[in-house]
């Protein structure tokens, strides 16, 4: 009897759940507060044109943010939120040129290039209503110089000697040596001294009370809440110095997986996401969304282990590049969305050279070069030298479909000139372990570099970086070492571009990498979102200018 009742109860429960599933569909519209329009702003906006105040957007993000403290962030999920909460002296615009943010102008730089003087806007307020002054700027930058600072950015400030408050709105940075890249170090958010001055610098990284629970900045949006694994909620900061943002609310929704994120976009649950190139075709079918594409500040490459035969021979590397039809890779794998690369730079950078040596697709020429290097076809058609077959492995990381496909397509192209290439994929962590010091255990890798705003090539190409690992292909060239070593000491941008250009020319000629392409990056956004500016590096660029149309 008891069991019968139990079964009935269970059956009822099941039926109940099914009914729930069937009829619950309506209360699922994305959370949108048709919030009240702030009156004083509405007039102004109406005068400007179409931008209507109010509304909210939900942004998809694929990572879990770690910290909302700009001095310690190392990941894009954190950086995206930080860029909305905090304001910095300068920022880069969509053409990657530095423009003032809370500074009134670009800094005045002294004749000797050692002193940078910034004037701040008056009336820049933190979210708690305190004014941001030169004291806060000094406080923030002194943390980088503090010996207890545990964050990742100390290396950016080795040349910084001191920060001096001249008056409430003027601050001077003094360097001990000329550093042409120093100007790009002013995009860190300014921290509020009045909140954090009593926290010892050694404890600041794990000071979660500020970093995670209650970050206060002077940026366009105020932090409300972070629910681990779910969402981060921000609201417009009414007193943002450049004017209240149009939107009332911005929510980041955290996704574990790109498929799930794309489905949420499809059903209208999110308004914005970074679109992987592999999903372009799917996203193009959406009526309610549009795709924005710009060139990314990065290049993709195949790195040859320069320490290992046969890749230690420059002719072999050049021949391999000539045997790989990079335009075909862009067309077939990247859907034509990118440009063939010839140098380790980006067309977006001011240091991008006007012209460098280019190796176009030429399998015949490749064979000639290889013959010159001593490689002749053997009995089975595979090239041989001293009884050794030309056979090697192309390594890439697991789960990256594009790199896997590049491995396969390169295998086919090289097979045509009698070179045997075997693509292999490894889990990311194990992959990095294998290709980096002290192992350096690879023939060729498919990888990419995301570039910094400053084009200093030292960290990747200087021979002293072999041991540190970024130059893990063991490229050595004395001239490159010499030029790279001095490039940061040249203040004049044209002169510096010439020096860096010479480095690029050497690299383009010697082909330590086969530079594959400069890829585009894509953002998928709902048609209701207007006023969007696509910045190649900063996802949240000018989000305060976005607005929604219903």
């Amino acid at each position, binding site marked *: 009897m008891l069991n*019968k009742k139990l079964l009935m109860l269970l059956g009822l429960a*099941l039926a109940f759940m099914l009914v729930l599933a069937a009829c619950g569909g309506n209360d699922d519209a994305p959370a949108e507060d048709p919030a009240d329009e702030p009156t004083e702003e509405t007039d102004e906006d109406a005068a400007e044109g179409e931008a209507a105040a109010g509304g909210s957007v939900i942004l998809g993000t694929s990572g879990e943010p770690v910290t909302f403290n700009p001095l310690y962030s190392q990941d894009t999920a954190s950086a995206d939120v930080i860029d909305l909460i905090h304001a910095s002296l300068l920022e880069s615009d969509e053409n990657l040129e530095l423009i003032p943010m809370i500074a009134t102008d670009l800094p005045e730089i002294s004749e000797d290039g050692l002193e940078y003087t910034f004037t701040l806007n008056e009336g820049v307020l933190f979210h708690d209503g305190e004014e941001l002054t030169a004291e806060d700027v000094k406080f923030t930058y002194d943390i980088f110089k503090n010996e207890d600072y545990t964050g990742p950015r100390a290396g950016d400030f080795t040349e910084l000697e001191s920060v001096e408050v001249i008056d409430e709105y003027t601050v001077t940075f003094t360097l001990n040596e000329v550093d042409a890249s120093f100007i790009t170090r002013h995009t860190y958010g300014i921290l509020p001294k009045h909140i954090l001055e009593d926290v010892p610098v050694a404890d600041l990284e794990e000071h979660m009370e500020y970093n995670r629970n209650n970050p206060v900045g002077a940026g366009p949006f105020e932090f409300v809440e972070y629910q681990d*694994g779910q969402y981060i909620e921000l609201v417009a900061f009414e007193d943002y110095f450049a004017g209240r943002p149009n939107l009332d609310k911005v929510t980041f929704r955290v996704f574990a997986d790109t498929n799930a994120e794309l489905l949420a976009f499809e059903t209208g649950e999110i308004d914005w996401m970074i679109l992987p190139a592999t999903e372009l075709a799917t996203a193009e079918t959406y009526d309610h969304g549009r795709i924005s594409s710009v060139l990314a500040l990065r290049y993709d490459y195949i790195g040859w282990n320069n320490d290992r035969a046969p890749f230690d021979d420059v002719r072999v590397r050049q021949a391999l590049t000539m045997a790989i039809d990079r335009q075909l890779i862009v067309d077939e794998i990247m859907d034509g969305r990118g440009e063939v690369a010839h140098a380790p730079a980006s067309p977006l950078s001011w240091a991008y050279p006007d012209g460098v040596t280019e190796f176009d697709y030429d399998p015949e020429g490749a064979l000639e070069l290889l013959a010159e290097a001593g490689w002749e076809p053997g009995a089975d058609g595979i090239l041989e030298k001293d009884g050794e077959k030309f056979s090697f492995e192309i390594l890439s990381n697991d789960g990256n479909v594009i790199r896997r496909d590049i491995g396969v397509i390169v295998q086919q192209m090289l097979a045509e000139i009698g070179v045997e290439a075997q693509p292999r994929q490894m889990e990311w962590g194990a992959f*990095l372990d294998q290709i980096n010091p002290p192992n350096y255990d690879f023939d060729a890798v498919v990888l990419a570099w995301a570039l910094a705003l400053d084009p200093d090539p030292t960290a990747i190409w200087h021979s002293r970086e072999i041991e540190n690992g970024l130059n893990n292909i063991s490229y050595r060239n004395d001239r490159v070492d010499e030029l790279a070593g001095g490039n940061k000491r040249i203040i004049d941008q044209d002169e510096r571009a010439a020096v860096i250009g010479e480095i690029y020319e050497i690299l383009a000629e010697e082909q330590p990498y086969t530079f594959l392409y400069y890829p585009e990056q894509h953002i998928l956004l709902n048609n209701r979102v207007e006023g969007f500016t696509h910045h190649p590096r900063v996802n949240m660029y000018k989000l305060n200018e976005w607005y929604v149309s219903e």
Partner: protein
Amino acid sequence: MISYIIKRVVMMIPILFGISVLSFAIMYAAPGKPAIMNLDPEIPPEVRESQIERLGLNDPIPVQYVRWLGNVVQGDFGTSYSRKIPVTDMILDRLPNTLLLMASSLFIAAIIAIPFGVISATRQYSLTDYGVTMGSFVGLATPNFWLGIMLIMLFSVQLGWTPVGGVATIGAEFSIIDRLHHLILPAFVLATADMAGLTRYTRSSMLEVVNQDYIRTARAKGFRERRVIYKHGLRNGLIPVITMFGLMLPTMIGGSAIVESVFNWPGIGKMFIDATFQRDYPVIMAITMFGALLTVIGNLIADILYAVLDPRIEY
């Protein structure tokens, strides 16, 4: 009985210790290093070195293990390398979500699988039996992530009945309906794999029971067949099935990792996957130990239930 339980609980200590040594060793033997040790062009090597030094990752592995164990004994599972927050907080934050998902899926599995198992057993070799058997194997063979995506495509994208993921509507007030609405699909998907096994298990257990003498006696007494099966049969047939639940607990952590990713469910399974890719040792160890604890406790509960339900068994 009490002394048996105490003995078993005491025995857990060396078992968990052994598991911790093994997991620690395997984790360090796996290729790759914590993500913070990876090269980042924007972080100079000396800064990285000092971070690694501070975390004690340069010490010999036994030293690291002893330090870890010392902290764990005091209830401190350390701070996540990549998230910079105490691991205990991270897990406690998400554990309720995972437990909710696991409990609901066990519930769904039970209410679907047990009746089907019984029907399948009482009508052995009938068309229904073959149908249920077939269905079980299809369920067993269907990968969770695939089923999950298919159901999302159908119910969320095409029909618009359920949300594509998450635990609750963002920005909405807490409501049980909203929670259940988000829960139903992932719980069902997680339940499918267990459902199949459970059906088969109930079936074979019931088959054994219905051939027992006391069932024949019950029938001989003239009880209705339903009463014979559900009162006399099921009661005994369920004993081994209930112990299955104890043993299913740990496997659900593994299954939930995949379902949590597909449905964007903020639980510890998803956290475990992230931690593994980032080689976030403190998090990996904490969740592994949690899984180990769940396994030994699950076993213990299964054994106790066995004795409780079957008076013939005594410890």
